[in-house]
């Protein structure tokens, strides 16, 4: 458990300097994302946790150890905090080979600190071919993978990442994101992840700390915050819901994979993950339509019976959010006011949710810290427009203890 309370001001009080006044806690596992617009203080918080910035007031404890307590005059030097940091600009040591960079923290880690070995990390991040090179000869994506490995090998008790993907273009991002996801699942270290990219939050985060202008706006499981239409998240075109689910079955003949969630199932193009894998899918509100009668002859794979729970305002003048419930699961849909009037939508109505697109989160045997998934996922009714794929039994969910990284591949 990391507990952070900070108060810090840059520049003079009278001038319009930046003032940070934030507090939050994060659990001992999973990814907690610090999310907010540019300049809201994310990097400042991260620096304070790492010890690279000494805030004017504050208290930081990690697993019960006090790292900082300005009232008590305690300030643990960064080199003794054992917080691995991945910087936006990777900060690899240019005069050392990739291998030496990786070993830099490892050599300085306490001998009794447990953690993945050199070979394991190299394999996990796919950087074996790079070991002899100098950082100057790496592409941006490779650099960030090495930086990840270096931080991980320092055997930290906490990983801090400051927009590790921000400097990368779309292709490069796509290259690093899966490694990050694997790291999250395999390393078993809590990760504090700073970003202003929503897709990274969706792909990686379990909990979210929403910041604005130096203050914490909201804090909680990603799934819960994603579905809240009162937060600025919803203003973005890609507001939606995140749904924990498990791979229930594969149907290679039809090229489909069935993902079971609490309340039903989705069919998505065939996935490589084995049956039983826990994952998360994202439904963007604008990818969900509703129908008052069961659609027929529609190419859309996923049509789910749902109840219209509420109609809430969207930021756009002529659109609203529909909050639908599919069993215990909430789904957001974004429709025009005109459609609401045209179809006569009212809370309590039974509808069909037409889900055009499903975004699959990076997979892995993930220890979700979000709202709990029932241990045996209830198998939903076959979807409206097709026969269910071959049913296979779903193995029990992996125990909360983390898979050691060595057994990953």
């Amino acid at each position, binding site marked *: 458990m990391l507990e952070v309370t900070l108060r810090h001001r840059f520049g003079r009080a009278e001038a319009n300097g930046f003032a940070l006044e934030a507090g939050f806690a994060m659990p001992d596992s999973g990814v907690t994302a610090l999310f907010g617009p540019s300049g809201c203080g994310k990097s400042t918080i991260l620096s304070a946790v*790492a*010890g*690279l910035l000494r805030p004017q007031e504050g208290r930081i404890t990690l697993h019960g150890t006090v790292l900082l307590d300005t009232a008590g005059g305690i300030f643990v*030097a*960064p*080199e*003794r*905090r*054992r*917080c*691995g*940091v991945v*910087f936006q*600009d990777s*900060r690899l*040591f*240019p*005069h050392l080979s990739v291998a030496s960079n990786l070993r*830099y*923290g490892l050599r*300085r*880690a306490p001998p009794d600190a447990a953690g993945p070995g050199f070979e394991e990390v190299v394999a996990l991040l796919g950087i074996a071919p790079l070991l002899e090179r*100098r*950082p*100057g*000869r790496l592409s941006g994506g490779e650099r960030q993978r090495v930086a990840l490995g*270096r*931080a991980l090998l*320092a055997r930290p008790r906490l990983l*801090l990442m400051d927009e590790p993907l921000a400097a990368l273009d779309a292709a490069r991002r796509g290259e690093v994101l899966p490694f990050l996801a694997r790291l999250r699942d395999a390393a078993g270290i809590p990760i504090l992840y700073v970003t202003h990219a929503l897709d990274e939050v969706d792909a990686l985060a379990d909990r979210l700390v929403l910041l604005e202008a130096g203050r914490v706006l909201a804090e909680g499981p990603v799934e819960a915050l994603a579905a809240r239409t009162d937060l600025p998240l919803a203003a973005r075109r890609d507001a939606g819901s995140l749904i924990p689910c498990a791979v229930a079955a594969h149907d290679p003949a039809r090229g489909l994979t069935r993902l079971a969630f609490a309340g039903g199932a989705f069919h998505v193009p065939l996935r490589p993950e084995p049956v039983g894998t826990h994952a998360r899918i994202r439904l963007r509100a604008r990818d969900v339509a509703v129908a008052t009668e069961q659609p027929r002859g529609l190419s859309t794979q996923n049509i789910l019976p749902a109840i219209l729970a509420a109609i809430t305002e969207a930021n756009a003048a002529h659109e609203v959010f529909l909050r639908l419930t599919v069993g215990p699961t909430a789904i957001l849909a974004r429709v025009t006011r005109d459609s609401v009037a045209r179809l006569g939508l009212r809370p309590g109505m039974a509808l069909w949710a037409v889900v055009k697109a499903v975004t699959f989160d990076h997979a892995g045997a993930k220890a979700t810290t979000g709202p709990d998934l029932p241990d045996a996922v209830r198998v939903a009714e076959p979807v409206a427009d097709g026969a269910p794929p071959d049913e296979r039994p779903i193995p029990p969910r992996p125990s909360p203890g983390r898979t050691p990284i060595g057994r990953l591949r």
Partner: protein
Amino acid sequence: MPLHVEPVLGLSAEEWQAVRLSLGVAARSVLVSLIPAVGIAWLLARGRFPGRTLLDALVHLPLVVPPVVVGWGLLMLFGVRGPIGGPLHDWFGLRLVFTTEGAALATAVMSFPLIVRAVRLGLEHVDQGLEAAARTLGAGPLDRFVTITLPLMSPGILAGAVTAFAAGLGEFGAVITFASNIPGETQTLPLAIYTATQTAGGEATAARLALVSFVLAISGLLLAELIARRMHLLLGRG
């Protein structure tokens, strides 16, 4: 058996001796001043203490005061009657004045501002983010200085060392005043040149020796440029 040195390249044995001595003195002066220069450059670039500007000024002192005066000041300090030289001599039997070591000391003091400037510039180019990264990886102050800061500032150190070496080859006033003009011990090339100019018809000798001095310094600079290029490649700035 006394070593008999043939005149080579038109230089007399004594002149060759001056060349060797000059190289030795310049090299030693660089070696002597390198560590303090790095330390002081670090203080000047990174330190935040009240006397910083004064220290900066003091470092520049040899640049603004005539070399002869520097030599004279050194003589007063490090002479066997001086406040530093006295104890050194009485307790350890060490004598700097009139020895090759003394010539190196005088040269080191004179080139100190040059070397500090270059080293400081090199240090200012070191990305402090990398040092912060090393901290988060568990490296303490000394560890981080040795493994990160020092290698990254090495181009600046090299530049400083080369400039100091070149300037050291030409140092005159401080050396002749502090260490005297003793062939084989303190008569470096510039002093030999001076002696030649004090001799009737010594202009040709002086010019020849000046040329030798020039060629040596240039070779040093060229070598340094080569090394610098390699270094930059190594540091991934190539």
